Structures are given as structure tokens and as C-alpha cells.
């Protein structure tokens, strides 16, 4: 057969014919835009890609992508995706979810899909609020947060999605920010390319119910003090003048100023390939305001993938026993014949 010339798809080709219905100004728009760019860059056929989501503002995402898609039920997207990927390892399967969808009602599926290392790409739009149901607190909302369901302030210790994912031994863990579009696109692309489960937490602004939740991380004047872009093999440096760094003090990270006898070599060097997840765990614990919060890839390691293993077992069984023969099966073991 002659090689087929594939048409080159542009980001716009990944948009569906449905009106995008997020609130004007919502951070979700930016994530959608970056995702389309990444799709174009990856140049996978659209029909080979499936977006699966739960319920929430963020979970409307699949409707807006001109790929296959499923807007499922609240919290369960990882389970649908596991079924798809287990049967069809040829497909690229994305899970789009929110902080409530993934971590509240869907926490268990999230946990298990991560520890099984199913080859999915999970993008969590973390706006630290329930957007779709109009403003209740979520598992990532801060202590003391006043919301519709917590008029005296939230009293639940918030979850740290990255720590949780690392607790479940996620093989790819990253964080990015809705408005940091280049970083976001790069991160989404790396996540898509990772063989195994990839988990990206995206800081997303809900300008209606939780506006400014990430101001510290997006506001030009302060962000370089409050976030730190980590890169494999590089020391942890941040600050507007790149004059601050993170040093290890025993098991404890500490912020130091460069100069005054402290050089880059004294700093913690990032190693996203570390086989043990302890470093990634430590990084995930760095939280504003005590620390700059890491963005970028915290962990990226190779491990067996559930979906592949499952399909390998099928192949192996066939190789060892031959393609199943029903007539033979029916007649195996004790049978008797009536004439």
C-alpha cells in the first residue's frame, strides 16, 4: 500500500461544533486552548483520541473537543477510562476532572487508576471550589474558607493532590497553571507522551466562585517568589532575580538566598527520574506561603502498565494454549453421551 499522506491538523481542527459554555473569564478556556495546541503538536489522529470526564464545569471539556468523548458521571471518569484503555490500548485516553470530581466523590477511582499505572492522562482542573454546583468548598479548599456550605469556615484539612498521587506511586506527576500557557502546553504534552498514568494538576481560576485563589502564583509582581519551576537535573532556584533556592536540611527543605557563601551546588537538585518517590513527595509538600510551590514535572518514571500487562496476558494465554476453542472447552472434563 502506498503510504497515506496524513493531513496536518491545526489546533482549531480539534474544536467541536458545540458552543463553549464556561463563564467568561474562566480558566478552563485557557486549558482548552492549550490542549488543542498539544493535540495538533502530537499529530495523533483525532479518532484515536478519547476524552473522558466526570461531572463539573471542567468535565464539560470533552464536548468541546472534536475527538471521541464521554461526559460520564460524577467522579467515575477513571473507571470508564480504565475500561476503554484495557480493551483498546491503541487509543489515547485523557481523563478530564475537577478537584471535587477527582478527589471528593472520585477519590477511590483516582487512587486505584494511579496505583495500577493505567496508561491514561489525567488532567485535574483544580479551582479549589465546586464550580458547577455554585460554590461549595472542595477537598482542596483552604482551612477556614467561607463558602455556601461552610458559613463559619471549612474545618477539613485540605488534600494535596500531588502528595496523594505520589502516595499512590504515580509514575508521572506534574503541576501547571492555567494562565502560564507555555508551561501548561509543555506539561500537557509531556504528560500525553508519558507511557503509564500521568497526572497533571492545573491551577485553574474560577472567577465566579473562587476568584483569585491563585493570585499568589499568577500575579506578575509576586509569582516568581511563590512558585518555582522545577527541571530535571537542575538546582531548585526561584525568585524574581533567581537569587533564592531550596536546600535540604536533613529531610527538610529550606529556603536559602544564593550568594553569601551559598552556591547552586548547595541546593537540592531535581531528579524526576528518582526510582523512589520520596523526593517527589518532599517537593509536593512545599506549599505557599512557607515555600514557593513547584510547577513542572515532579516525577517521571517507567513502570509496567496495567493495560499493557492485561493485554500481554491475553496474548500469552493465546500463545500458550492456542486461540480458545469453544467446542473443545465444552467437551473438556467429565462428559457422557446419551445415544
Amino acid at each position, binding site marked *: 500500500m502506498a503510504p497515506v499522506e496524513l493531513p496536518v491538523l491545526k489546533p482549531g481542527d480539534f474544536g*467541536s461544533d458545540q458552543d463553549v459554555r464556561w463563564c467568561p473569564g474562566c480558566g478552563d478556556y485557557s486549558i482548552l486552548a492549550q490542549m488543542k495546541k498539544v493535540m495538533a503538536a502530537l499529530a495523533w*489522529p*483525532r*479518532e*484515536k483520541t*478519547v*476524552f*473522558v470526564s466526570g*461531572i463539573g464545569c471542567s468535565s464539560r471539556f*470533552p*464536548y468541546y*473537543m472534536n*475527538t*471521541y*468523548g*464521554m*461526559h*460520564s*458521571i460524577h467522579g*467515575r471518569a*477513571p*473507571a*470508564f*477510562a*480504565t*475500561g*476503554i*484503555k*484495557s*480493551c*483498546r490500548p*491503541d*487509543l489515547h485516553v485523557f481523563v478530564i476532572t475537577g478537584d471535587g470530581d477527582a478527589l471528593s466523590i472520585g477519590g*477511590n*477511582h483516582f*487512587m*486505584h487508576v494511579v496505583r495500577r499505572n493505567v496508561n491514561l492522562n489525567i488532567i485535574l482542573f483544580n479551582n479549589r471550589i465546586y464550580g458547577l454546583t455554585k460554590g461549595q468548598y472542595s477537598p482542596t479548599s483552604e482551612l477556614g474558607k467561607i463558602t455556601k456550605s461552610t458559613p463559619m469556615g471549612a474545618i477539613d484539612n485540605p488534600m494535596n493532590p500531588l502528595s496523594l498521587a505520589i502516595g499512590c506511586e504515580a509514575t508521572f506527576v506534574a503541576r501547571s497553571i492555567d494562565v502560564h500557557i507555555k508551561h501548561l502546553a509543555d506539561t500537557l504534552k509531556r504528560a500525553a507522551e508519558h507511557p503509564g498514568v500521568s497526572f497533571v494538576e492545573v491551577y485553574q481560576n474560577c472567577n465566579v466562585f473562587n476568584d483569585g485563589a491563585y493570585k499568589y502564583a499568577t500575579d506578575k509582581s509576586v509569582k516568581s517568589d511563590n512558585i518555582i519551576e522545577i527541571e530535571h537535573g537542575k538546582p531548585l532556584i526561584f525568585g524574581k532575580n533567581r537569587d533564592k533556592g531550596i536546600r535540604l536540611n536533613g529531610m527538610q527543605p529550606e529556603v536559602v538566598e544564593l550568594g553569601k557563601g551559598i552556591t547552586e551546588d548547595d541546593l537540592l537538585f531535581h531528579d524526576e527520574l528518582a526510582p523512589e518517590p520520596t523526593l517527589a513527595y518532599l517537593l509536593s509538600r512545599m506549599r505557599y506561603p512557607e515555600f514557593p510551590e513547584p510547577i513542572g514535572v515532579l516525577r517521571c518514571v517507567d513502570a509496567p502498565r496495567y493495560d499493557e500487562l492485561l*493485554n500481554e*496476558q*491475553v496474548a*500469552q*494465554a*493465546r500463545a*500458550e*494454549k*492456542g*486461540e*480458545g476453542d*469453544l*467446542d473443545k*472447552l*465444552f*467437551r473438556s*472434563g*467429565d*462428559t*457422557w*453421551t*446419551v*445415544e
Partner: protein
Amino acid sequence: MSTEFESETDHSKAVLKIEEATVRFCGDSGDGMQLAGTQLTNTSALAGNDVATFPDFPAEIRAPRGTLAGVSGFQVHFSSTDIYTPGETVDALIAMNPAALKTNIADLKSGGVLIANSDAFDKKSLEQAGYDDNPLDDETLDSYQLFQVPMTDMTRRAVDGLDLSQKEADRCRNFFAMGLAFWLYGRSLEPTRRFIDLKFKKLPAIAEANRRALAAGRNYGETTDAFVSSFSVDKAKLSPGTYRNMTGNQALAWGLMTAAKLSGKELFLGSYPITPASDILHELSRYKNFGVRTFQAEDEIAAICSAIGAAYSGHMALTTSSGPGIALKGEAMGLAVMLELPLLVVNVQRGGPSTGLPTKTEQADLLQVMFGRNGECPLPVISARSPADCFEVAIEAWRVAARFMTPVMILSDGYLANGSEPWRIVNYQDLKPIPITHPEAPTNGKPFLAYERDELLARPWAIPGTPGLMHRVGGLEKADGTGNVSYDPINHQHMTDTRAQKVANVAQVIGDQEVMGDPAGDLLVLSWGGPYGSCRTAVTRLQAEGHKVSHAHLRWLNPFPANLGEILRSFKKVLIPELNMGQLSMLIRNQFLIDTIGLNKVQGKPFQVAEIIDKAESLLP
């Protein structure tokens, strides 16, 4: 090693020919009663009898040895005529200890054979079973033919010299009991010997011990004075063919695999273990070379969701559970109805409500599977009537699911799932294929409509990977045709009506309801699921006595066969025996406004034929 090989038919005692017999082995969970029962079953089947079995497990957890809670039983019914149930009152009871005697004796028919392992009736065991005095010694058991057999002692002697520990030696007791039972019913030891050879290939000492215990049991019957006669049961007149014994769960699993193959699909099962459905998962997970993928999910919700994902991706998808797990799947089932994807949901019912009686049987989930979802959310429901029938039901369910693009609920129950009966082996190529087509990209430039419908109202099954058919599905109401989200009031009504009509259309393919007996009369016994056998037997007997009684057994509970109303109205009375408090009755009364009479029982046990006959007789002129 020496094994005795005397001719097994060389009976020196009288042989009474009987038509059928029901034998129950019972003992402690650790006593190997399930194995004993299975061996008697297979041997009887190989001897040409019709057989049916019913194991009775203790509650899920293992109770301490010798306690009432730890008793395990296995009942075998074999016959020279067609049988429909595993038997009810027991003709011969083999009780390995006092606890087993205590819990089972009520089912032994008066005058029946009672074989007790007298060695096990020591003080401690009697106390554990709650006996103040040894029932073997007083008049308690006077109405039975009691045979006290020192099985422990005899078994130990039989295996003497094989260098086994006492524990190992005692584990052979069930083979002694088998041997004795085999003698009693003139059964060959050969099949069980083959089984021993295979099973204990790697443990020659154990194999030899079991072989010896088996022979010892047989010899005991043959030799001692205690037994004056044995029985023989002729071959049944089964349809010609090759048979095997199958439990309901196994038959269901094999039916599903067959359905997959017939439709050119690979099977995906998303499941979470639960009694009594787990064996379907176990069974299917063994057949990866048939392209079967099993996924033990983190819970029942993930199980069904993964299956829906698999269905979306183009596979034959399935989830299996029992009552409590089915309750958890309600929300996702609703999504499957909305997505209009083919999916099989298997509910192997058990005693409820809540955790209930996990190892006992019941039919009390019918209304749950009909209505346990939010909104107007209909789906077809099919039920199996006997262990082997599960095979057919699986295929028929998938035929409908694939044809109509709908989830289909399959109802089985603990009684069918663990019970067994002979299955006449089919030839794969004799089965009707299940045609499935997936649309390809339209070439006429028209946009693809994911919710365009065919004459039966099914939508197309477009699968990921197909260029040009990219579409999104979801749980929000969707616009007719396109499947896009729609909040339009009239569209919602239309889609609700359409989903209902689609399920109603299933009636067009399932055929008419059949009636055993006259099409009109004094009484119709209407049944579904497990009670089929008892109802069929009861009605057959009543008919033999000249009563104007007929039997209709429903396979599909939703929709009902098109002619059901007509049938119901042709009888003066309609009796509905159910192992629940009247759930089919409710559906029938609602739809046909007929004053059905319920025979309802929730005791964790199947109906006795006599219960149905009694009730029917009370209704007959």
C-alpha cells in the same frame, strides 16, 4: 502400592430398582462434602441418570469445626426420568458429625436412610451441636433407617501404612463416605478414581489413601450385615447427545463467552467479588486465550463504569454482582441507559435486604433491577430458570443488548448459580450468529448522527478509532438525532418516550409466551427464575391428577411477551410463586389488572414441590 480392583457390579446383596433418589452429604466445612456431592453427581450423570444438585454453604465465614454454623451440605438428585429440581425431601442423608445431623435431619424423609459417622458423636461434638444426649443412642431417630458407621476409624485403618499424619488420614473420610454411597446406589468407583489420579498427581500417598478409603467405603456397604440391600436407578431417557454437568455460574460464563464469539467480539468483564456471583469472575478470568479480559475493580461502581467504557470502545461488556453491589451500580446503569450502549449486568440474587443472608437464595431484586435508578430509566430484564439455562440466557441477553443498543439485566440467583444439572453440549457452529455492524464514516457528506435510529429504535454503535465518526456521549439529556446536549422540554419527552418504546420493542424479538398444558383452564401457575423446576414438577403432577392447571414460565420480565395478557385472562386464577413478597405479582397486577395470587416465601431456600401443589390445590375447584 496396591489398589483393589474388584468388579464393582458384583453385588452380593439384593438390589432394589427405584426411579429416583435424593442424597445429601453433610458435614463440617472442612469435611469435603462439596467434593463428595460433586463426585456422586458426575458418577450418576455418567451412569446416564438425569441429575440436579444443590450445595448449601455455610455463611461466608468459616465457623469453628463442629459447630452448627460450620455445616456444609451438598444434595444430589438423580433419576431415570426427567427432573427439574435438586430434590427436596432427602432419601439418604450422610452426616459426618452431630452438627450436620442436627441441621439436616429435618429434610430426611420418614423412613429414609441415615448414615452417621458414629466416631464423630463424642461428648464435645454433641455439646457443640446442642445435643444433650447422643441421638444415635436414643429414640430420636427411630423413624429413619439409621446406620452407624465408624467412618473415622475405618478410614484410618484403610490408609494404615501410608505414612500419613492423622489429620491427613482423616481428610480421606469423605472418600469413605462416597464409597459407601456409591455402593448404596450401585455406582462405579471408576470416575472418582480417575478424578483422584488427576487431582493428586503430585501427591501419590494422598492419592492412594483416597483410593483406599473409597474402596473401603464401598466394601463396607457390600460386606457388613448392616446393609441388606442397595438400590439401582436406570438410565434416564435424555435427548441423545453428549452431556456435561454445569453449575449456573459456569453455564453463564460459558454462555457469555459463546455470545462474544457469535458476535465477533472479545469479552470484557468489570467486576468486584461478591457471594454468590464471584465464581463468574473466577471462571471468566481463566479464559484469556478466548480473548476474555477480566478486571477486578476497586468496587462495584468502578466495575460497571469500566464495563461501560469497554462497551463504548466496542467490546462486549459485562458486569456481575449480587444485590448490594447492584444497588451501588444504579447510577451508572442510568448512564448506560442514557448512552444507549450494549451492556450486560448480571445480578446473582441472594437473601436480602442489606447484607442479609449472603449464601442463601432469594428472588427479591426484581423490583430493584426494574426501578432502582433515578428518572424514567427502563431496561430489558431476562431471567434464567435452571443452572444449564444460564447458558442460553447469556446468549439471548447479548443478542438483545447488541441489537437494541441497551443495557440488559440478567437475573440469576444463589440456587441456580451453585446448583448444577446436565447440559447437552452444543456444537458451536449450530448456534445462530449475533450480527453486529459498526458504522463507517458517512461518504455522502452528511454529518454522522449518533442518535439516529433504526426501525426498532436502536442507535448506531460507532466506535473510537473510526475516522469521521468522532462524537461525544454523556448523561445529560440529548437532542434527538445528533445526541448533543438538549434542555428542550419537548425533546425530553420525546427521548423519554423513545427509550421506553425501544425497550418495549424487545417484545418483537423474544417470541410468544409458551404454556405447558392447556391454553385455558382453572389455574395458571406463572413463575420466573429459579422456581421453574418446582413449578414445572408441581404442575406436571397436578395435570397427571386431572386438574386444569397449566404452567407458564417467564424468561423476560421486561418487556413481557406480547401474548401474556391474553394467556393470563384465559385462566380463572393465576398463581405466582416467588421467593420474595410478590414482586412479579406487582408488575403483572399493574399491567394486566389481574388479581394474581401470590405464593411468597423468603426463607433462603427454594420452593418445595409440595408447597406449590398444596397452594394450587387450595385454589382449584
